[in-house]
């Protein structure tokens, strides 16, 4: 599994990650980011892409 952490002090809810990995990241009805804290290994590529495009570099991935 991959553990996903978003530093919500940094996150500005730009939603760039949503496009790269919509299974994990979503903007809710108030345009705020919501995400799942875990994802299967085969999503690593999408998750790295999401972390790469985060303007605030707020997304950290850890492989368990």
């Amino acid at each position, binding site marked *: 599994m991959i553990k996903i952490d978003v530093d919500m002090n940094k996150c*500005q*809810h*730009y*939603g*760039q990650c*949503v*496009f790269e990995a919509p299974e994990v990241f979503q*903007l809710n*009805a108030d*345009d705020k980011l919501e995400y799942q804290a875990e994802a299967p290994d085969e999503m690593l*590529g999408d998750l790295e*892409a999401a972390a*790469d*495009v985060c*303007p*605030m*570099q707020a997304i950290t991935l850890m492989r368990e």
Partner: protein
Amino acid sequence: MTDPMTDADDRPVLIVGASMAGLRTAENLRRAGYAGPITFLGAEPHAPYNRPPLSKELLQTEGQGHEDVAFPIRSALEENVEWVLGRAAASLDTERQVVVDETGAEHPYRALVIATGLRPKPLPIDDHGLTGIHVLRTLDDAVALRQALRPGANVVILGSGFIGCEIAATAAKAGAATVSVVSQSRIPLERAIGPQLGAEVRRRHEAHGVRFFCENGLFGLVGDPSVERVILTSGVMLECDVLVVAIGSDANTEWLEGSGLDASDGVLVNGGLQAVRADGTVLENVYAVGDVARYPNPLFDEVARRVEHWNLPTETGKRAGQVLAAHLRGDDCAPIIEAPFAPLPSFWSDQYDMHLLAFGMTYLADRSEVVAGTLEDECVVEFFRGDELVGVCGIGMRGAVQGYRSRFTPPVAAR
């Protein structure tokens, strides 16, 4: 000389520019299976860092530095990577496959990635050696400007693009006595996001006390040894302790003069980010990525452009890494290159509590239309070139703006 197509070649992939685009290229080279040597040659003394906070968080937070904006270096780049920082490239010889740096040292390469980015255009008039004049591109620029933006300062910003407007907002929040934006344009941000949104941005700035001097320029500077006043072409004189020049950027391509590459406005590349020479031939082992690359985007048309938006260093780095890894394996790169390279530009700007988010090439539009909400509050604006949707920009309403991404799809076949 060793054959560049065999593994016997121990020369590195040389990435000139220790930048986001360079880093993303290296990561994607590794991801695509290249385990060989990589060398970064960077003009700045810093390892790659994230620039967007430079005009915002880092500019207003005392004590922030490189560690707050540095990109993490993934484990794949911990081995077999050399960092040569604080040395600018001076020339390129594509026949000998060598880059010479400013100290005269030679850096041979098996393949070259050009990621030298941009630098701000300088003050368009004589600065008479005065201090107190700033630009904002690098981390060191941002730290110097932060120290100058003291409460009570009189701040003048030349230029009303995104960087100029973001600095104006940061300066106003930092307690500047006066913030003045001087611009050739009729309306701030007009070229980028059109007259409707530009006028609304101006209204919001003025509500925070920022003054605009549009269709105007700098005529002269007064002060000794630091700037004290600026005289505008309209004759107005402004008190000025801090002058920020934010009138756009030029590509860092001087070092490519005489190399045979087409570097007239950034480095011309094909759909595989491979450099195109002035005679039209392609160099399969020379790539350009990020802000310095000029390429057509089939989402819009066939005109090669340099595009300075947030996600394109990542997109160009990804593509270049894939193509270059195939080239280094000796594979046929044509199938990758022939697939359309059509990244959707994405950008945003934060000024006060206003969040702008945009996709596409809004500046290609000849008209814009508010399709949801109101300009004074939150809204979505569509941008058209003729009947073709070329961009979308919102104030707030991010979910709605995100929904437009699927409307931009590259034309099939033909291109």
